[in-house]
């Protein structure tokens, strides 16, 4: 074979491919393959959604359905469950578990686990209690110290994991015990430290609510930002010759978002309103979601969770990803612990104890983040935490004891994990794994 004949350059290839492109010139670049099932407009969007569900790509549908069922059951059992007053309580109770679950979502995305979030949250709360109340530090300094401790613990885990290859299960199991010990050590003999009720921290967690006007303004802002970013994305895609959602679909989605946000805000405004602490949680969820889906770091997290070796060969700094995710998880745990202490106005030996750990992990899993790594979303922390707290809140309203709560929570967790496993199997069968 002579080498002269092989002098074709990329331009030549694209010109030879031109005729078939001309034939489909009116179609966007990503819809030209004849095997694709055409889905256009609103009915197309609905069709795509149902076919995704059928193939096992359930996303957050099971947890939303579950939440609706749980709320319906409790509302029937006790008509005050869905009252504004109780729902405001629910948002306050959800926050600390939700923030901790946010960190769990991140480690689960890597296919790892952190069993020590409860203890870490407890030790962070203890640090705040001792330094702020007993030592008289400024509150900001105490918070920084407690959160810095959270970061350090995560970096330590990450170091053990990446340098010595100790399984995260064992590292964090040791952390569970070790930091519980540290918490007791920090607290000393007294055991319980009451936080001053008039401090800014306690005020933020218990008495700070958005005014109704501000809450509605925020909803309008969020919906406008959503619609704008969708519309910008649409224009950019159209300019690049790719398929773009029609304006009608964007409008419908924005309207849907507005409804989803307005109803709870209206209900919460019936009582004290939207809690600042809950708003902080929502902001953390949105930020984490954007970080995970829209940044290089987040893409790397998914890649490491999907196939570590592939990620390493693609030049991703795998070690840095592990370190940052373990650190983010324990940092969220520390923040969650501080918020819990602030809401309960006290730090004690039981802070972060008993079920905080499992509630946080269960929240992430119930919310739809896979235990198998590489699949999940920050919103699962919000939805899962709502489920978990709704159960304990509802059972408390019915004056049922924690024994029932444990059993019900366990049942919901089992159902969630079963759904995860089943949908994973179905995704594999439908080629979406």
């Amino acid at each position, binding site marked *: *074979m002579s*080498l*002269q004949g*092989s*002098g*074709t*350059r*990329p*331009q*030549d*290839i*694209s010109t030879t*491919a031109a005729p078939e*492109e001309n034939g489909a010139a009116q179609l966007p*670049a*990503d819809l030209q*393959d004849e*095997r*694709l099932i055409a889905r256009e407009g609103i009915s197309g969007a609905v069709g795509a959604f149902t076919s995704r569900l059928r193939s096992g790509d359930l996303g957050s549908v099971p947890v939303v359905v579950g939440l609706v069922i749980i709320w319906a059951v409790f509302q029937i059992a006790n008509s005050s469950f869905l009252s504004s007053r109780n729902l405001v309580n629910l948002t306050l109770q959800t926050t600390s578990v939700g923030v901790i679950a946010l960190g769990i979502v991140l480690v689960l995305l890597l296919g790892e686990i952190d069993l020590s979030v409860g203890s870490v949250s407890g030790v962070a709360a203890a640090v705040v209690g001792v330094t702020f109340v007993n030592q008289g530090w400024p509150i900001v300094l105490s918070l920084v110290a407690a959160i810095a401790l959270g970061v350090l613990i995560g970096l330590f885990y990450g170091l053990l994991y990446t340098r010595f290859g100790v399984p995260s299960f064992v590292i964090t199991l040791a952390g569970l015990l070790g930091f519980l010990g540290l918490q007791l050590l920090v607290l000393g003999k007294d055991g319980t430290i009451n936080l001053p009720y008039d401090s800014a921290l306690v005020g933020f967690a218990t008495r700070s609510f958005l005014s109704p006007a501000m809450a509605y303004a925020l909803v309008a802002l969020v919906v406008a930002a959503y619609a704008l970013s969708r519309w910008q*994305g649409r224009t*950019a*895609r159209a300019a*690049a*010759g*790719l398929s773009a959602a029609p304006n009608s679909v964007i409008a419908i989605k924005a309207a849907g978002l507005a409804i989803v946000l307005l109803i709870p805000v209206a209900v919460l405004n019936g009582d004290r309103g939207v809690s600042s602490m809950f708003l902080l949680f929502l902001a953390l969820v949105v930020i984490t979601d*954007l970080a995970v889906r*829209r*940044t*290089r770091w987040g*893409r*790397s997290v*998914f*890649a490491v*969770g*999907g*196939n570590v*070796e*592939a*990620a390493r*060969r*693609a*030049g*991703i700094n795998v070690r840095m990803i592990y370190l940052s995710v373990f650190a983010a998880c324990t940092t969220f745990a520390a923040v969650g612990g501080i918020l819990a202490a602030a809401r309960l106005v006290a730090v004690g030996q039981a802070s972060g104890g008993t079920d905080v750990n499992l509630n946080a992990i269960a929240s992430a899993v119930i919310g739809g983040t896979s235990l198998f790594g*590489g*699949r999940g979303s920050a919103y699962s922390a919000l939805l899962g935490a709502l489920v978990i707290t709704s159960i304990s809140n509802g059972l408390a309203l019915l004056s049922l004891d924690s024994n029932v709560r444990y059993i019900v929570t366990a049942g919901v967790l089992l159902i969630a994990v079963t759904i995860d496993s089943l949908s994973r199997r179905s995704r*594999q069968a*439908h*080629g*979406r*794994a």
Partner: protein
Amino acid sequence: MTVTPSTPTPLDVGAGTVLTLQGISKRFGAVQALKNIELDVRAGEVLALVGDNGAGKSTLVKTIAGVYTADDGSMVFDGKPVRVGSPAEAQQLGIATVFQDLALCDNLDVVANLYLGRELHKNGALDEVEMERSSWELLRQLSAKIPSVRIPVASLSGGQRQTVAIARSLLGRPKVVMLDEPTAALGVAQTAEVLNLVERLRERGLAVILISHNMADVMAVADRVAVLRLGRNNGVFVVSETRTQDIIAAITGATDNAVSERAARRSKEEGPAS
């Protein structure tokens, strides 16, 4: 970054050698995996690297790719002597390798896999639109048959996955592409697709090193065949002038044992038997 039609591959096609290996040796403990390997790879040419199991093909590929460092010998890339200390260095030089396991992330879509580790971004966020657009451009140039770039790689067929892996290697604008067993475990039609792709790489003026056990594939697309046997060079054949048997003989070493030499002598004396 991307292979756009407006920027032609800066290559003087046919002019010559892109990569030359001289006296490459590699030992693993007491095993001499490679001994004095000489190889030159030319632009716009498919060089097949064949040999039995344990002949040293994979070791050689990994040495070129920077996974292993050679104990001895030198590499000349693009006229300059180079030392490749890591896979990243090899990629920066312009040596792309598609390993047999493809190293794709099943949970990510085609675009994410193509740009893994070198994502484009705009204002701090991933530029999904530009990545999707150039993914389509690249796949079209390769006439790759991928229905959608927004589906997880797990749902693609073996040939499509191979295509994605090869397309990914091209994003770094390499001059040499090494494909390790690209057709292993593929069906008939998919094998043909991958072979078409290999030919298209050659048409773009790339030097392709193809490792394969399948002699039919090798004879179908390769211009030259380099045979390794027990870690040494065992001949380089120009495919158009060689019969498959000769290459197989070089692979198995059937020519250099007493029985086959004797058989060859006798068949010459008795005239061409077959």
